[in-house]
C-alpha cells in the first residue's frame, strides 16, 4: 500500500483571471491531499504556469486512502475559496466522478446556467463490489443533493457552504454512468425568475473500520436569474412628430455571458422579427456574475427611414437563445404638410 502512488488528474492548475464588474479577479489554484485516517495534509507543488495535464502524487497512500481536493482562491476582499473538485483513492472504496452539463459552455471554470433552464448531472461509479464477503463500504455509495440560495443580489462570495440545505439522498449500488436530468433548479426563492444560488451533488463512501465516510466526488452548478428590462421615454401608441426622444433602457440581472441590444422594425410587434439595431444600444457582458445596466439612447433618428408605425424591442442573447425583454410600438409622423390655396386675379 505504501508504494501505491495515485495518479492525479489536474483539471486546472496555476492562475487565471476573470472580471467581476470593473475589478479583475485572479484565481490561484491549490491541490490538497488529505491522508486517511491520519489526517496529514499535504499541498502538491503546482507550477503557476502549468497548463492542464497530469501529475503523479509523490505522497504514498495509507490504508484508509487519500482524498484530493482542487481548490481555487479568488483575491477578493475578503478572500473567497471554491472547492472545484475532489477525488478519493483507496484500496476497495469505489471511485466516483460527478460532472454537470448545462446549456452554457462559455465559462469553463464553474458550471453555470439560468434558473429557467435544465441541467444534467453525470454520475459515474466504478469499483463497486457485490460479493457476499465484500466489505460493506465496497458495495454502495451515497449520493446527496444540496441547494443553497445566494439571497437577493448575492453572488456567492463569502457564503458558508456548510449552511446548504440537503434536498435529497439516494444510494447507488451499480457501477457505470447515470445521468440525472433536472428541468430547472429547486433552489428555494420567489419569484422563480429571480433565483440565484447553487446546487451541489456529492457522492460519499460508506463508513467502515478503516476510514470514515468521505466525499468521493462533488460538483456544483451556479444558477443565475432571468434578465428583465424596460424601455422608458417612449410610450405605447405615442405619435412622434419631431426627433426621437431620449430612450432609457434598464436591464437587470444580465446573464454573465450575454449580448443585449434594442432593435427597431416597421410595423406592429411580431416576435422573432429581425430588425435594425439602435445605435448605442449594443451591450456585451463577459463576466462571472450577473450585472445591471442602464443605457441612454440619443440621436438615433437615422435608423427610421420613413414615417409609419414602428416597434422597438429590447433583446438579450444568451447561450440559451434570444429573449425579448420589452417592446413598445409608436407612430412616426415627421412629414410636414402645408395646406394652402393659390388663386389668381386677372
Amino acid at each position, binding site marked *: 500500500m505504501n508504494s501505491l502512488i495515485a495518479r492525479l488528474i489536474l483539471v486546472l492548475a496555476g492562475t487565471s483571471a476573470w472580471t467581476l464588474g470593473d475589478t479583475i479577479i485572479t484565481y490561484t489554484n491549490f491541490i490538497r491531499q488529505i491522508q486517511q485516517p491520519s489526517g496529514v495534509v499535504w499541498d502538491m507543488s503546482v507550477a503557476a504556469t502549468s497548463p492542464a495535464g497530469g501529475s503523479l502524487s509523490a505522497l504514498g497512500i495509507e490504508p484508509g486512502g487519500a482524498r484530493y481536493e482542487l481548490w481555487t482562491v479568488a483575491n477578493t476582499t475578503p478572500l473567497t475559496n471554491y472547492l472545484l473538485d475532489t477525488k478519493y483513492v483507496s484500496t476497495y472504496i469505489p471511485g466516483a466522478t460527478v460532472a454537470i452539463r448545462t446549456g452554457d459552455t462559455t465559462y469553463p471554470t464553474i458550471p453555470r446556467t439560468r434558473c429557467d433552464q435544465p441541467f444534467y448531472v453525470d454520475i459515474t461509479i466504478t469499483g463497486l463490489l457485490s460479493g457476499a464477503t465484500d466489505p460493506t463500504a465496497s458495495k454502495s455509495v451515497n449520493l446527496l443533493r444540496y441547494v443553497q440560495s445566494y439571497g437577493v443580489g448575492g453572488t456567492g462570495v463569502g457564503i458558508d457552504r456548510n449552511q446548504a440545505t440537503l434536498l435529497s439522498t439516494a444510494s447507488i449500488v451499480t457501477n457505470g454512468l447515470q445521468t*440525472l436530468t433536472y428541468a430547472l433548479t429547486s433552489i428555494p426563492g420567489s419569484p422563480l425568475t429571480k433565483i440565484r444560488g447553487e446546487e451541489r451533488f456529492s457522492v460519499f463512501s460508506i463508513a467502515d473500520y478503516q476510514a470514515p465516510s468521505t466525499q468521493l466526488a462533488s460538483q456544483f452548478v451556479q444558477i443565475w436569474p432571468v434578465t428583465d428590462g424596460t424601455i422608458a421615454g417612449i410610450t405605447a401608441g405615442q405619435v412622434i412628430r419631431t426627433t426621437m426622444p431620449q430612450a432609457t433602457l434598464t436591464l437587470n440581472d444580465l446573464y454573465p455571458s450575454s449580448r443585449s441590444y434594442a432593435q427597431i422594425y416597421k410595423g406592429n410587434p411580431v416576435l422573432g422579427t429581425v430588425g435594425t439595431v439602435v445605435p448605442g444600444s449594443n451591450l456585451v457582458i463577459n463576466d462571472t456574475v450577473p450585472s445591471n445596466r442602464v443605457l441612454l439612447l440619443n440621436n438615433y433618428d437615422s435608423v427610421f427611414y420613413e414615417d409609419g408605425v414602428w416597434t422597438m424591442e429590447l433583446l438579450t442573447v444568451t447561450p440559451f437563445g434570444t429573449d425579448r425583454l420589452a417592446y413598445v410600438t409608436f407612430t412616426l409622423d415627421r412629414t410636414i404638410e402645408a395646406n394652402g390655396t393659390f388663386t389668381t386675379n386677372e
Partner: protein
Amino acid sequence: MTNTKFAQWAGVAMVAGLVVISHAEGPPMRDATTHEQLIPKLRQAQQNDPMKKMAVVPGADPADVYKPKDILSESDIIAFQGVATLVPKRAIILIPKNYQDRIAMLPGAKMVSWADFYVANRGWITTVEVSRTQAEGNVPLTDDTQKHLSECGNLVIATYMGGPISMLPLKEPKVPDPKAPKTTNPKTPVTTEPAKP
C-alpha cells in the same frame, strides 16, 4: 451575376451586416420567462426528481460526518511585500518573533502558489524536508535538525517533496524508551527570539 452587380450586392450585404444582427442561431426568439410560467414547470420537475426513483440512504447524513472543509480556515496565510500564499495548518513549525506579522493576509496582496512564493522569499523562509512518518507524528525530528532550525532565525516550513505538509503532534510512546531521541515535534509553532547577527 456580373462582377459589377456582384460587387454592388456584396457591398449592400456588408453594410446591412453592420446594422442587422442575426439571432437565427439557437432556439427561436421568445419572451423572457415569467414566474407564472415556471410554477407548473417547477412542480413537474420536483415530481419527476430522478433521485426519488433511487434507493433511499438509510442512517445518518454522511455530510454530517464529513463536512467539506474550507481551505482558508484550514490553512495559514503567509504574506510579504504584496504577495501571499497559504500552507496547511501545522506546516509552519517555527515562527521567529520578527516574522509574526507576516503570518496573516495583507490587504490587496496577490495570492500565488507556494512554489512561487518560496522562490521569492528564500531569504527568510527555510524549509525542512520531513518523511511521511515524521509528518504523522510517529517519528520525531532529530536533535540536530531541531537545533539547526532554532538557530537559523528564519520562518520554518515542513515540506514533503517540496510541498508544505502538516506535522501532527508527536505520538507519545506507550513504553518509555531511554534510548529514544529527546526531541519532539512541536504541538504548536514555536516562536523564537530573532537570531543574533
